[in-house]
């Protein structure tokens, strides 16, 4: 399994000279399974670059949406393969009692927010609610589960060729709970991340910022590290960077994360901040160098 981070930012695209290293595009991770099948985890503005990188030839891919906040779907109408007739796209996402996945996404891909309607997309696109049980895409087993965020939100686990990727970019597992002491089965998202080869997890706020954002659906640095430690993920990428965090600030948070991870007994270099454009291959062979 190979993956590339096409967008690591949370909330709103944050381009500019102060965010050029960690990136300003919102959530999107491209995944190539062991048989070459393509997945996109979320469709934030980062998916635009993913689309441009795909060759203009018949393509079938699956887009797994964690939820429908704009920073996770904004790139859909700028995803070049969606405008090719030879492309087949399956969009997976959370169910909701108010409307189907298609109808909820169509609120964005419709006037006045979009120049095109869902029905006008040239590609063959279908929408599927994620089942409660595991399902298969190519050689991979996919599991989706609701996690603590605002509104219907999923985390994903992808198992392929003996490796596992857990993707929980928007997550507040410590809302009203102490995840250091809580029983494992009572921690939101625990089963998705348990012993994962790689965990991509929300790390939006510093500990100092979190008290002003309780209930907003995101993790503090401490909560993200505690979640990673409790789930025994082998490697963790902190993701969904706050739009107010410059490269310089993220460097500081990265150093703090590594120091605190080491103090918690974690292996050096197994926690890092996600950079837009970073590529990984599972199984991971050695810890990446620290963010500098």
């Amino acid at each position, binding site marked *: 399994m190979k993956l590339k981070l096409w967008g690591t930012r949370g909330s709103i695209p944050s381009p500019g000279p102060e965010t050029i290293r960690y990136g300003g595009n919102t959530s999107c991770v491209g995944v190539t399974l062991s048989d070459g099948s393509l997945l996109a985890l979320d469709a934030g503005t980062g998916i635009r670059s993913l689309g441009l990188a795909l060759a203009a030839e018949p393509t079938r891919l699956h887009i797994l949406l964690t939820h429908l906040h704009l920073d996770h779907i904004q790139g859909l109408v700028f995803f070049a393969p969606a405008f090719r007739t030879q492309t087949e796209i399956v969009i997976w996402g959370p169910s*909701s009692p108010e409307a189907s996945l298609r109808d909820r996404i169509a609120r964005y891909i419709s006037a006045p927010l979009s120049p095109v309607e869902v029905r006008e997309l040239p590609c063959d696109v279908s929408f599927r609610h994620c089942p409660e049980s595991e399902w298969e895409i190519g050689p991979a087993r996919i599991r989706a589960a609701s996690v603590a965020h605002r509104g219907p939100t999923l985390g994903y686990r992808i198992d392929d060729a003996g490796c596992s990727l857990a993707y929980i970019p928007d997550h507040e597992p410590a809302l009203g709970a102490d995840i250091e002491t809580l029983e494992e089965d009572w921690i939101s998202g625990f089963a998705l991340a348990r012993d994962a080869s790689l965990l991509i997890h929300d790390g939006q706020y510093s500990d100092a910022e979190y008290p002003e954002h309780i209930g907003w659906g995101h993790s503090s640095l401490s909560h993200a590290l505690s979640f990673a430690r409790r789930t025994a993920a082998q490697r963790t990428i902190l993701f969904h960077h706050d739009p107010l965090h410059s490269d310089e600030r993220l460097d500081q948070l990265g150093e703090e994360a590594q120091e605190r991870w080491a103090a918690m007994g974690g292996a050096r270099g197994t926690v890092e901040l996600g950079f837009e454009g970073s590529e990984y291959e599972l199984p991971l062979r050695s810890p990446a160098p620290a963010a500098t």
Partner: protein
Amino acid sequence: MSQRPLELILARNLMSALSTPAFLVDEGGVLVFYNKAAGVLLGKRFEELGTVGPDEWGSLFGPFDERGEPIPYDKLPLVIAVRNGRPAHADFEIRSADGARHTVEASAFPILTAHGSRGAIAIFWPTSSNGTGG
């Protein structure tokens, strides 16, 4: 150990922050949590008790009707909520571990999701206490 559904996790987190006695059962009727206020009422903390099966937890505290007769399990609001998927309310008397009797109003409501029932929550509102029993 399987992962608890998110709806139960969030319910437990909310209940943990309440000073109103509250009880949580899963979709099978197993008592999976009650908060500290409920523990004070029952005279026993949840951590001392652990999860309790659906046929057992009623006997933890009675309950009894106004004549002192045990109330059948399937008449309890929490059981109605989890089995029938609708809210239920009742007044009854309970006995705590130290023998004290309390009259409570109990309201229960189901936790329903797009994937079906996850369980139910009951809130107890003590209306009177009658001291320690024999």
